[in-house]
């Protein structure tokens, strides 16, 4: 089954079939209405007309004397019209049928005491009868006509208007089908144009030849294409950047390995091997960061909301304490001091794993970019001035010039000249988390320590505005 056929089957009738069914159905109903009203109206008019005929015929008979009618001298009227013979006549005198026309039955067409127009059953047939007293006393005249005859006339007249209707129906159906098909053609073309695209071609569709009703769809599609192009470009950029960033540690590993191979003395070989391992560690760290970032970006692309990654909660103080224990050896190695200031647990709506990523990157940066002997201080505060929680990481390092502050968080931007082998990804990860969890991030100069101060605020969820 082709995709379009599958889609049709799923959503029921196609647009074209639905439009066609509606138009033709309505047409049928209207025509039926016309037929019914014609039937009723024409029947009524015909009755009036033919009743008048009966009355006229009766009036003529009333003027005749009985003697003129009696016996064989009943004048056979000349046949002037084909319908003329339909009218049957009976003249009754003192309960005896004196005169009757050839088409009249033997039985009385009506009752003598019921004058005027009546519909009566005579010998199994329905008659329309006008009963009137004759000129002389005790003479009653019945002038009648078979209802079936009237019916024939009615049918004939109805047939005359029904035929064009019936003949026109297929023509109209064909015309409607053609018009509807023409109307849905732009949609069909659009579908074909989209279906014929290669997945990587994301240039916008032309809006020029599209009717105004379809234009919003095309616009929406173009908008989608544009966003996909952006996404793809950012993916490509990321891959390129990542590959680029991995080149240096890999180059170092390769070079050190060759140095180890070619080393003539044992200390030189040991040194080169140690450097090779360091390079591996660095590459691993870079890969881990890249994966973290990719996961976070995937999170952002899927939902743009923290909800997908979960909302924790976790205890910020405990998380910070755990990380400090992890990073203490690194700080010790560099002669740096690592201090945590906190008063009891502070719960934040963030999963533990991500809070660890966030804090680790912040502390890691502070340690890496501060000189040996520097001081790095973490403060965790709960509920300060409408804030849910506040985390401050500050150091006594050199801080950052304003132009570097502005570029912080650009992927792979790295403050050069620090002698550090960071990739600049740590900040990208921090910023991604900040966006994902709608935190407030402030970077400025530490008043207490003189170096860089990073402040993270968790907004109070009870005061936050949903958007």
């Amino acid at each position, binding site marked *: 089954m082709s995709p379009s056929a599958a889609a049709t089957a799923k959503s029921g009738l196609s647009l074209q079939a639905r439009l066609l069914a509606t138009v033709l159905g309505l047409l049928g109903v209207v025509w039926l209405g016309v037929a019914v009203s014609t039937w009723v109206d024409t029947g009524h008019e015909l009755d009036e007309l033919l009743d008048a005929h009966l009355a006229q015929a009766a009036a003529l008979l009333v003027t005749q004397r009985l003697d003129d009618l009696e016996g064989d001298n009943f004048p056979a009227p000349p046949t002037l019209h084909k319908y003329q013979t339909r009218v049957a006549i009976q003249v009754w005198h003192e309960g005896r049928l004196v005169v009757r026309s050839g088409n009249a039955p033997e039985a009385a067409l009506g009752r003598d005491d019921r004058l005027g127009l009546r519909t009566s059953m005579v010998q199994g047939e329905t008659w329309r009868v006008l009963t009137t007293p004759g000129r002389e006393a005790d003479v009653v005249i019945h002038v009648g006509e078979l209802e079936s005859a009237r019916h024939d006339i009615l049918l004939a007249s109805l047939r005359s208007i029904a035929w064009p209707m019936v003949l026109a129906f297929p023509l109209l159906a064909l015309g409607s089908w053609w018009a509807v098909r023409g109307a849905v053609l732009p949609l069909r073309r659009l579908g074909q144009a989209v279906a014929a695209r290669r997945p990587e071609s994301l240039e916008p569709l032309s809006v020029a030849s599209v009717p105004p009703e379809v234009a919003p769809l095309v616009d929406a599609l173009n908008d989608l294409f544009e966003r996909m192009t952006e996404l793809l470009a950012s993916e490509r950029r990321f891959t390129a950047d990542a590959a680029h960033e991995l080149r240096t540690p890999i180059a*170092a590993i390769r070079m050190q390995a060759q140095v180890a191979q070619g080393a003539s003395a044992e200390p030189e070989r040991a040194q080169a091997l140690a450097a090779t391992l360091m390079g591996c560690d660095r590459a691993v760290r870079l890969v881990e960061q890249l994966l973290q970032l990719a996961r976070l970006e995937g999170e952002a692309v899927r939902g743009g909301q923290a909800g997908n990654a979960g909302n924790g909660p976790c205890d910020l103080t405990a998380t910070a304490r755990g990380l400090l224990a992890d990073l203490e050896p690194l700080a010790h190695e560099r002669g740096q001091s690592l201090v945590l200031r906190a008063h009891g647990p502070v719960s934040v709506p963030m999963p533990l794993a991500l809070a660890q990523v966030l804090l680790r990157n912040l502390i890691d940066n502070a340690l890496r970019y501060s000189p040996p002997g520097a001081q790095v201080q973490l403060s965790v505060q709960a509920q300060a001035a409408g804030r849910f929680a506040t985390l401050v990481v500050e150091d006594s390092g050199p801080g950052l010039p304003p132009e570097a502050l502005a570029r912080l968080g650009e992927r792979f931007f790295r403050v*050069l000249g620090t002698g550090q082998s960071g990739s600049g990804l740590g900040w990208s990860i921090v910023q991604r988390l900040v966006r994902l969890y709608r935190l407030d991030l402030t970077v400025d100069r530490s008043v207490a320590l003189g170096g860089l101060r990073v402040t993270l605020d968790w907004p109070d969820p009870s005061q936050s505005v949903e958007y």
Partner: protein
Amino acid sequence: MRILLAEDDELLGSGIRAGLTQQGFHVDWVRDGVAAERELLSGAHQAVVLDLGLPRQDGLDSLKAARARRVGTPVLVLTARDAVPARIEGLDAGADDYLVKPVDLFELAARLRALVRRAHGQTQTRLEAGCVSLDPVAHQVWLDGVAVELSGREYDLLHVFMLNAGRVLSRDQLEQHLYKWGTEVASNTVEVHIYNLRRKLRAELIETVRGVGYVLRRESVPKA
């Protein structure tokens, strides 16, 4: 051969330095673009390995500045920027070779040798001057087809002389070519090495030009 290395990555820089040293080069290592430009302008090196993403100044700007000042030292750009436009830009800025990280140590050394050879107008890998020939790849010297054992410094000195055959070199220039930074050079070191070379090869091979320096003659040296 004295090489300038400009690379800000500690691990890679130390690796290249150690590797090139194994390959018989003397490596001076700078870690930023400004220092790279300063050292390029000094003209003390026979070739330069230049990273582009350097702190303080992009390597490409250091290179352009040096080329603008008519510094002809061959420069090999070693970078992570692998896009074709970046390669073109690097070569057009005055680079003589362009290598993308990661790079093989032996290839890097071979390319540096080639750059130095071409910079001195040589087409043969094996340098010849009269009865003396020198193979920079094998670090081997022959006199009339017989291998001669030279010390590292003697070899380096002979290499410099043969690359600049026919040109008079001052003692300062020779020292600059021979010693990387931080090496204590005694006042008569060059003379001692030249004496040894004359002794091991031919006395007439290296002539003294009074008050100027020394020269190795390109023409065939008559046998003693």
